């Protein structure tokens, strides 16, 4: 495992224009229902890629399959040159792919800070014995994790609510906390599942800023979203799904003109 990981990281440094992420022929069916049908596309680091489509198009399923929650029926998912299709979710996370959730799915029993600290899990292995005995190494690590988590909260603007329970946050802040938690994993690629859903205009603006800032730092993004103005403003590349099939792919301007996309969104009436 460690050898292959080393290899992939070497690859990632050398590739340049090679895609961070590539799906080929990804298919998923639940019983008789075809949720994803032979989807292929590439995702480059330079682009913020958006995945759009009407309700039931299979966007969330796509994220769930890629992130390891569901097993794909067939197809491959390459992440940094390695096929991650079928890996369990926690292993996918370890490879540097993180995601957020449509309904934010925070850890309700914990404080805001602790939620972010959970996100640091991938980079901090703690043995059960050393944790229970509170060995000096664990103490040091705990301190570091806490500082890191606090930094992230500051970065995202939630540091004043660090000790509050998540249930007390308003929706917008919960969404942001979801992003912060995913951020704590320091991922290579982040998949945001409807990050702007239910946000007010100023919150969306804040989110856009945040994404741009992170992109500067070299993080790749894939965003699933309904909010069209947001998508059109932020993304460089858009993939459109309908009934589990990819019907279009391209820069926002092209997609706006695409007849098939318009038809999919407005129903078959045109």
């Amino acid at each position, binding site marked *: 495992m460690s050898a292959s990981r080393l290899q992939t990281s070497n690859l990632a440094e050398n590739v340049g224009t090679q895609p961070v992420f590539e799906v080929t022929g990804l298919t998923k069916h639940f019983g008789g229902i075809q949720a994803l049908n032979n989807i292929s596309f590439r995702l480059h680091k330079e682009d913020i890629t958006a995945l759009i489509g009407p309700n039931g198009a299979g966007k969330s399923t796509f994220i769930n399959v890629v992130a390891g929650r569901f*097993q794909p029926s067939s197809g491959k998912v390459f992440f940094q040159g390695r*096929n991650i*299709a*079928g*890996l*369990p979710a926690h292993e996918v996370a370890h490879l540097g792919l993180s995601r957020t959730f449509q309904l934010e799915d925070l850890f309700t029993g914990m404080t805001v800070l602790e939620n972010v600290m959970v996100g640091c899990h991938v980079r901090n292995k703690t043995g059960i014995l050393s944790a229970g005995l509170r060995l000096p190494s664990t103490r040091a690590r705990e301190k570091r994790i806490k500082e890191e988590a606090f930094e992230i909260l500051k970065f995202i603007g939630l540091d004043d609510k660090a000790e509050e329970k998540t249930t007390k946050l308003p929706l917008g802040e919960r969404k942001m906390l979801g992003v912060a938690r995913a951020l704590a994993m320091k991922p290579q690629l982040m998949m945001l599942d409807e990050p702007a859903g239910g946000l007010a205009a100023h919150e969306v603006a804040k989110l856009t800023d945040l994404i741009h800032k992170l992109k500067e730092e070299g993080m790749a993004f894939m965003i699933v979203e309904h909010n069209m103005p947001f998508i059109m403003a932020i993304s460089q590349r858009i993939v459109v799904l309908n009934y589990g099939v990819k019907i279009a792919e391209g820069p926002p301007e092209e997609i706006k003109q695409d007849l098939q996309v318009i038809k999919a969104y407005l129903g078959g009436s045109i």
Partner: protein
Amino acid sequence: MFISETIQYAISGITSGSIYAIVGICWSTVFLISGVLNFSTGEFVMLGGMLTWLFISWGFSLLPAIFFGVACTVIVAMLMERIVIRPVRYPSETTFLLITTAAGSVIRGIVLIACGSDTRHIEPFLGSSPIMIGDAVLLPQVIIVVSVLVLIAGGLVMFLDHTLFGKALRASSINQVGARLIGIKINRVRLFCFGLAGGMGAIAGIVIAPIEFTGYSVGLMEGLKGLVVALLGGWTIRGTVVAGLALGLLEGLGAGFISTGWKDALALFVMLTFLIIRTLDLTSIKKLVYRHE
């Protein structure tokens, strides 16, 4: 000799199996329709038997005693839903598990305080002159037990499949929110389920009392076996009946030919194995395939 022995074991197995099946149906009706696993189901069985005995000892004749026994158990079951289940503010499996177990021990304790710890006996309904099958003996009460199972299971299937109310119940079991939208009141449904389960459990307790006696503590084991068969039967009525009879037969024959000491462990072992096998789905195999690619 061997054949009649086997028949004897089978009879004993079918008798207990029928009771397991009825109790199993009680578990699955409540669980399937209201999502609560009621860990005091066994106490309904105990209540049925004990109350009927109580009414008989007060001088009622058999049929009215049975009627009152069942009616009182139904009332207790519904009260339990009303007092214990409905007010729970943060419903979770853990809460329901704990609260129904506690309710069970309250019921058991009250019966014990009121009726004493003595074991009770109800006379067989059709007398005790045995029917001989070769050398094997069939008690008339066994016929009653089996026919009660057939009546309950058949009646319930008919009710759920062929009446409007039954269909509504099934609908609410599939989708609680949806059911609420089309005007089914979940609380009422659950109340009804508890009453139904209480009634069926009580009947099971009554018909078995002449064979197996009844006492304040019979509920624990009967309840547990019911849970086992409900699980094995996949919470469906047909499945539970099949599982109940199968488990009863397995126990009867196992006790007859293998060991009597491990009889109760057998049922538990079957349940454990079944549960574990259930978790082994195809995904883990698929995972292996993907990893080796």
